């Protein structure tokens, strides 16, 4: 298990060469946009003459960028974690691994640990980036930009991505990389598509700030539900991962990967 995990970490190191510049570029872009919103324009910002407080008008845009950064960075890392499967397939390493003295459970455990490592790194960098952007925005204006709320937001995103990966890993072992990607994308895109349709409908029905307030209200409601049943959710996630892991080991043993 340790050997395969080490190999995945070598993959991670390789992938970070492209991921780190992308993260930095995303952060710089978000910072520039947020600062220019806060200071009115870039010239003022650079001279540091006028400091405008965050207000109800610019807060949604700033929040949009912060949520965006919280989503984009973890998604990038998770895509990279999935690329580990692809890299193994391209190199023909899957064939090699089955000739090694490695138990099926160990091979699968290494893969889950890789995902968790990628996840932890992505959540850390995403939190750091979001905090930098929020701090530069003078994030006291609205409640949603506080560190506590950001942490909650990151955790919710992490939970969603973990759910997605928990579904995708056994699918990869069962169907292979290509079919597994298609199947998991369908599973992912159906709820996202439904949410998008709902959003489009709301966009037509509610003008700018009303839509923002509505979404914030929904976000608060959602957060309240999440906090109310936190233990049940944690237990549910653990159970979900136990089942996902068990299925992965079973599919791996069957040699389902093509």
């Amino acid at each position, binding site marked *: 298990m340790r050997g395969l995990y080490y190999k995945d970490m070598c993959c991670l190191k390789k992938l970070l060469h492209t991921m780190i510049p992308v993260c930095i570029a995303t952060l710089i872009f978000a910072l520039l946009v947020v600062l220019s919103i806060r200071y009115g324009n870039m010239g003022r910002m650079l001279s540091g003459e006028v400091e405008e407080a965050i207000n109800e008008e610019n807060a949604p845009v700033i929040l949009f960028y912060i949520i965006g950064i919280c989503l984009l960075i973890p998604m990038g890392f998770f895509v990279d974690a999935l690329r580990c499967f692809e890299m193994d397939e391209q190199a023909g390493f899957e064939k090699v691994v089955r000739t090694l003295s*490695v138990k099926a459970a160990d091979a699968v455990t290494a893969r889950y640990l890789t995902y968790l490592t990628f996840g932890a790194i992505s959540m850390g960098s995403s939190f750091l980036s979001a905090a930098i952007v929020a701090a530069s925005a003078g994030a006291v204006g609205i409640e949603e930009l506080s560190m506590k709320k950001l942490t909650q937001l990151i955790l919710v995103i992490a939970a969603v991505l973990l759910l997605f990966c928990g579904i995708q890993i056994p699918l990869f072992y069962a169907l292979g990389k290509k079919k597994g990607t298609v199947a998991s994308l369908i599973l992912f895109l159906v709820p996202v598509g439904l949410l998008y349709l709902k959003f489009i409908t709301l966009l037509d029905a509610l003008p700018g700030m009303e839509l923002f307030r509505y979404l914030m209200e929904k976000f608060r409601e959602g957060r309240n539900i999440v906090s109310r049943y936190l233990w049940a959710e944690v237990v549910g996630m653990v159970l979900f991962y136990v089942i996902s892991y068990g299925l992965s080991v079973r599919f791996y043993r069957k040699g389902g990967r093509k």
Partner: protein
Amino acid sequence: MGSEKEVNVIEIHNLNKSYDGFALQSVDLQVTAGRIHGFIGQNGAGKTTTIKAMLNMMPLNAGEIKIFGKDFQKDEQTIKEDIGVVFDEMGFHEFMTPKQIATMMSYVYANWDGEAFQKYLTRFGLPLKKPCGKFSRGMRMKLQIAVALSHHAKLLILDEPTSGLDPVVRNEILDIFQEFIVDEDHSIFLSSHIISDLERIADEITFIDKGRILLSGEKDTILEEHAIIRCGKKESDDINDDCVIFKRMEAYGCEILVNDADAARKKWGDALVEPATLEEIMLFYVARENGKARL
């Protein structure tokens, strides 16, 4: 002097595996300890499928496989500790260096010998810190062999290790295999369609075609038993013994492969009966199977 009982390192009985358009049919195979066993067949004959089955890399429809006398289903980890496998393609990530591969393998194999690996790298002229994606095909093959030999494997399973290599590197690699086999505990199962390689180093040979074993045994015995009778078309009509494997009509006459060279020589004389090479034997057996298929 009492003869020592020969031990089989690989025993396959009644192996059956079928998938889209291909089937391994009742494959029986034994590999004797301390020998190099050549596994010959055309591309798509079932060599790689048999190897994958041996290594428990795919579910079987039927059959029993034992390696070192142990059941793969029960003792997979123990068995794999003592096996080194080399495929025709490298299988390691191209960005990985031999050093990283060695670190990975040191976590995988309890018997990993870092010093031995370093010695093999030096001997094969492989750099420690260069990504293996920058290696030539020959270097990649040598890297795989270095990895396979550095955990003190007792059995090497090699799937087309010399295909696509130039004669010099091929020769070098065959020498390494011969050195490995000097230790009586060591055995090699070598699949190839390059028959000259097997003719040079194999002690035992198995022919496979379309998922069926056509012939299996000691290489020298196979070569002694088989012979080719070269004669005219008219004379060939009189040669219809049980020992005839296949008659091949040529523009200038006829070639007949027999599997009892001594009997053939007694009947038709040394002038007509010539020794057969492994390649000729394989071609005749395959032609016979194709002839049967056409019938």
